[in-house]
């Protein structure tokens, strides 16, 4: 009787341990929701809006993870590529769905180029891809600012003064996308009890999921998984490792470019210099909250993560204000949680690697003991 119970309990424990982060966030949300005092329909509305806005971006992270390049900030580069495209499209005054489609197409060359640069650099820094991608992100951000702040309007022609800084070159801090605003979301949108469901955006996300599932079954997907698990074996088997890794990064950036356009059309304006700076961090945090790790992530993780992370995000300030009487505390608390969850996931990943190493020793000691006992 007792013996039977132990494995069941152990299994449950294992399950809890394996999903510690999502469970933690469920608890946090469960505590915070009543404190924040939002109506369920408001919460639902917000969550659905944010799902439509962010899911596509979060899904982009899956490609580099598949190729073993960890939580990759390369997607931020795709976001920058999309922003350049969106600025141009806004200046050309292409509005509505055509504007969105044009932005997406226009973003491809930019994000592919940036992805290629990023992938090449990361191949030069194998073993520390994450920190490298993180720094690349800042580095390219410098070039992005150079282009947007100095070259646009002076070398790249910008027609409309309304998006330019008063000094005559450079783009304003915010570019209005009023005429593109939520045009995808509104397409086929359904309202159920005051909750707007952006059906078309969800269809796009669904297509992305299907693409990922399909992609896993392709030769390239298989190669990527092989490279991700063991680069040397893959190389011995004749897979071009470096190229495969670059492709995974490029795919991530290009898709992130599309995702960013979806994101921007939902918001309805473009924060020119800050729009991309936190995207990578948010998406990574969301994916990790969904239970992904540095080496393994699924579509399910992305969905769960976006829901939980953004739920926390919405309710934290209110709950913070409720507890401490200061809404800023809640603001900082959600910042803390976002960073904390990434730090935690990274620590768990590294610690696990080391634990696996010491396991072999324990096995030997046990074998020795058994032998001695037998003698």
């Amino acid at each position, binding site marked *: 009787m007792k013996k039977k119970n132990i494995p069941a309990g152990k299994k449950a424990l294992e399950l809890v341990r394996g999903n510690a982060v999502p469970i933690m966030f469920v608890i946090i949300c469960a505590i915070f929701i009543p404190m924040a005092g939002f109506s369920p329909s408001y919460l639902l509305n917000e969550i659905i809006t944010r799902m439509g806005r962010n899911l596509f971006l979060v899904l982009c992270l899956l490609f580099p993870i598949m190729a073993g390049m960890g939580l990759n900030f390369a997607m931020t580069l795709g976001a920058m590529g999309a922003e350049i495209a969106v600025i141009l499209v806004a200046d050309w005054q292409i509005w509505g769905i055509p504007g969105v489609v044009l932005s997406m197409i226009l973003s491809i060359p930019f994000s592919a180029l940036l992805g290629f640069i990023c992938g090449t*650099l990361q191949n*030069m*820094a194998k*073993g*520390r891809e*994450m*920190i*490298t991608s*993180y*720094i*690349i992100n*800042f*580095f390219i*951000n*410098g*070039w992005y*600012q*150079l282009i947007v*702040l*100095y070259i646009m309007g002076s070398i790249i022609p910008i027609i409309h003064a309304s998006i330019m800084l008063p000094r005559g070159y450079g783009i304003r801090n915010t570019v209005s996308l009023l005429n593109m605003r939520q045009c995808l979301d509104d397409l086929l949108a359904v309202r159920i009890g005051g909750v707007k469901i952006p059906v078309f955006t969800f269809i796009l996300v669904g297509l992305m999921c299907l693409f990922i599932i399909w992609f896993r079954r392709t030769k390239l997907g298989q190669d990527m998984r092989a490279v991700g698990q063991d680069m040397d074996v893959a190389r011995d088997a004749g897979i071009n490792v470096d190229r495969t890794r670059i492709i995974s990064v490029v795919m991530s950036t290009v898709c992130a470019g599309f995702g960013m356009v979806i994101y921007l059309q939902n918001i309805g304006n473009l924060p020119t210099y800050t729009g991309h700076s936190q995207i990578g961090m948010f998406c990574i945090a969301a994916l990790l909250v969904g239970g992904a790790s540095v080496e393994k992530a699924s579509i399910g993780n992305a969905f769960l993560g976006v829901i939980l992370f953004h739920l926390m995000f919405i309710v934290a300030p209110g709950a913070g204000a409720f507890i*401490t009487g*200061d809404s*800023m*505390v809640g603001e*900082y*608390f959600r*910042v*803390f949680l976002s*960073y*904390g969850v*990434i*730090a935690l996931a*990274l*620590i768990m*990943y*590294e*610690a696990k*690697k*080391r634990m696996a190493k010491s396991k072999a020793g324990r096995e030997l000691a046990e074998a020795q003991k058994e032998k001695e006992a037998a003698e």
Partner: protein
Amino acid sequence: MSNKKKDYNLNSPSKFTDEMKTIPPARRLTAQEKTQMSPLQAMVASYGLPRLLITGFLLVLFILTPFVDVDLVTQITNIINRFSWNAVLVLAMVPMIHSGCGLNFGLPLAIICGLLGSTLSIQFGFTGPLSFVAAVVIATPFAILLGGGYGLLLNRIKGGEMMIATYVGFSVMSFFCMMWLLLPYSAPTMVYGLSASGLRPTISLDGFYNQVLAGFLEIDFGEIAGKLGISLGALEKLVIPTGSLLVFVLLAFLMWAFLHTKTGTAMTAVGSNPTFARAAGINVDRTRMLSVIMSTWLGAIGILIYQQGFGFIQLYNAPNNLTMPTVAAILIGGASVNKASISNVIIGTILFQGIVTMTPTVMNSAIHMDMSEVIRIIVSQGMILYALTRKVKGSK
């Protein structure tokens, strides 16, 4: 043999200050060029292209100054000033690089310790120079405690230090963002006026330790000229924050001396080849921990020195703003992910701060476009990127 090495390392800081004092501006320029010329040749061989470009860029800026109507002496005063603020922070990178913990992207943690010291010092009612001493004293136990915990963590995640350090730094920083609001601070100079609780983002240090080091033995050529009743021309604008520089020299000397002791030698060996060190009976984990605590403490002192120069305490997200420039500075100075020396600190800080101060003014005057911010980002991040992507030779 030992003397030779000693001389080399000791020389750099003292020569630096000497030059400031004695060499007239016209000659200073050439001297500056010279000091950069000799490493220049070495740079081509071993330092690599990026550093060369940065040095070249700074040189061009210097050469341009007279032509674009920018006052060179003011610029040099600025560079010295900014050097005195930042040098100790850059120095804080050294122990961790030496012990193989990589670039300390977790600098915000150290800065938080310093901030705790400074805010508590004010809270406890210390004023004037004493408040600086109190801040140092209070920051020390925090640095040891937090640094110890940080070291413990880093020992468990060998190999993934840099990324985790980044996020641990962020986490601690955002945690303290909450704390600044919640801790029962009450000194009226620090808290929000209306609610009388929660620290303000920027706290003025007037009446506390503003310029307390910089003012110590300060050499103000303008004042001297005034007193003596002679004209020193352009030189009158030169001000040297002797005290800050002396403190840096002292700390740099201590660091240099430490690296020459038994424990310091062990630390270098741990960074160079941890397996070798282990085989030689070194407790690798303890050595790394020590290095992290040292880095944290130096970082805490570094931010206090920064504050006394800057004149303000910056809270909340401000700690993060110093991480990248500091990391970039030591790399520009010639350090790599696992090697760094005092001279790297000095050269790096001068070069980086040189670019930071020179670009806005010179560029602005030259092409009427203030691209300094962008240039700074590209230079510093490019430098870090270069260091990360460079193949680490030898042991890993």
